[in-house]
């Protein structure tokens, strides 16, 4: 398993010590999971939803429970660590 590659997919920076520890822990958890291969699942349909719900449809109309206004803006944008006026500020995407 390539820990560096997975960490990069997961967008988590790991220290070398964390990488080492993670390698051991993941290997032990994954070898426990190998157990699943003892069971033949050919022809078994996977189960994603337990209570039998298939689709949950509704009319495409606005509820109005969350009205966009000064207060909601403050609550939501106010949480952003970096902001300017009513906008969330983001670092440059590419290296300058």
């Amino acid at each position: 398993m390539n820990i560096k590659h997975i960490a990069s997919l997961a967008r988590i920076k790991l220290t070398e010590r964390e990488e080492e520890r993670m390698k051991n822990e993941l290997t032990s958890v994954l070898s426990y999971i190998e157990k699943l291969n003892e069971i033949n699942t050919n022809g078994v349909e996977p189960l994603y939803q337990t209570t039998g719900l298939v689709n949950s449809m509704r009319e495409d109309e606005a509820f109005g429970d969350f009205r966009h206004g000064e207060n909601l803006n403050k609550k939501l944008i106010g949480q952003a660590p970096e902001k300017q006026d009513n906008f969330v500020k983001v670092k440059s995407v590419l290296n300058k």
Partner: protein
Amino acid sequence: MVKTMFSYTIQDIQEGLQNKEFSAEEIFDHYAVKIGLENKKLNAYLLAFDQRLTVNDLRPETSPLSGVPAAIKDNILIDGTICTAGSKILENYISAYDATVITRLKKAGVSFLGKTNMDEFAMGSSTENSAYGATKNPHDLERVPGGSSGGSAAAVAADLCVFALGSDTGGSIRQPASFCGIVGLKPTYGRVSRHGLIAMTSSLDQIGPLTKNVYDAALVLNVISSKDKFDSTATNMDVPDFTKNLNREIRGMKIGVPKEYFGGGIEGEVREKIDSMISKLNNLGCKILDISLPHSEYALAAYYIINPSEVSSNLARFDGIRYGHSSKNAKILLDVYRESRAEGFGPEPKRRIMIGTYALSSGYYDAYYLKAQKIRALVKKDFDDAFSKVDVIIGPTTPSTAFKLGEKSSDPLSMYLSDIYTVPINLAGLPGISIPCGNGSESGLPVGFQIIGKLFDEETILRVAYQLEQLLTNN
């Protein structure tokens, strides 16, 4: 007058309010003072409120939860208050709205005492994974209260609230209830809305009550059960009055005892208590039937694919940009993600995000996630087969009583194994309840008895639980 040395149930509060022994303010203040004095040694609460935060003062005759002081697990949003989910990444996060369960409790007149400690993002079975320090078990301060709803369970057991809400993904209500000697109910998947619950494993998460007795669990379930336009998995089914049939006798009921729940891992003193409960059911006129749930031993392995996979997806939203912790060291956008997540997440979320990312990465999906969902279908089929012959299934909630702080925290796998009897129920979406059935003969610590029901049949498991509780308290 509020009685100082008394552990109040919901019914006690109702009576106290009706008889004008105290007002809703007085009982709230009583608990707020008690939390101030006793929380330091338990660390059950992360945050205590100095006002009730409720909207309604209803007559206790019309709303049984009116004026009842409650504790809320810190992954459920209460508008305008901090919600950390036990993580540093949300240390300063302020909820922008009420979870649906909170809206419903507010309408019912519940008072909110504070937010309770939990394993980070509900990942864990001991509360030791909280970024804010472990909660202690009120029965023995050197032991864990269980988890992930350990703060809620400890608060109920130590009478630092009348009832609490928790969430249960693989046992996170029932296991701490068992360790702390209280009642914990995990409703059917879809019975209670998760809108405003910080998502961990969306195909399994469910909110439920932790209470001092079975009747209280039914009262709370009455209020929090509902359909919800904000949670499309919440069912449209009618909500019965869960207290109505508690008193009906259970003579003739068919009780399934799965042989897989009494295997090698179970401690002798737990086995002893569970056996004595089975003979009590026998005395109540139930038919005890041996059953088999052959895929039980594979459920936990399947869970540890499904859970990390959904975790890696759900926790992708913590990006250091819109809310939550943001690294001061990052110069470019990619590093904002990588550094903020490195600094904000503790070891267990990192571990699970890594496992999940691996399991879902290109080329591995079939071998892991798909395989696990097929095993899940087999686990569910085991239960379907069993429920064609029995009304409820019973067994231990956990293989052991509460373990020592630090005992399992260095070995993730041994920690995972403490949920071996609770995880299959979540995989199948079923309701389950843990009730206290006395203390172990060796440890002297509480043992939990688990009752598992058919989909949406909380009524029957509550009824069996109530009948057993009556028998235990009257003896």
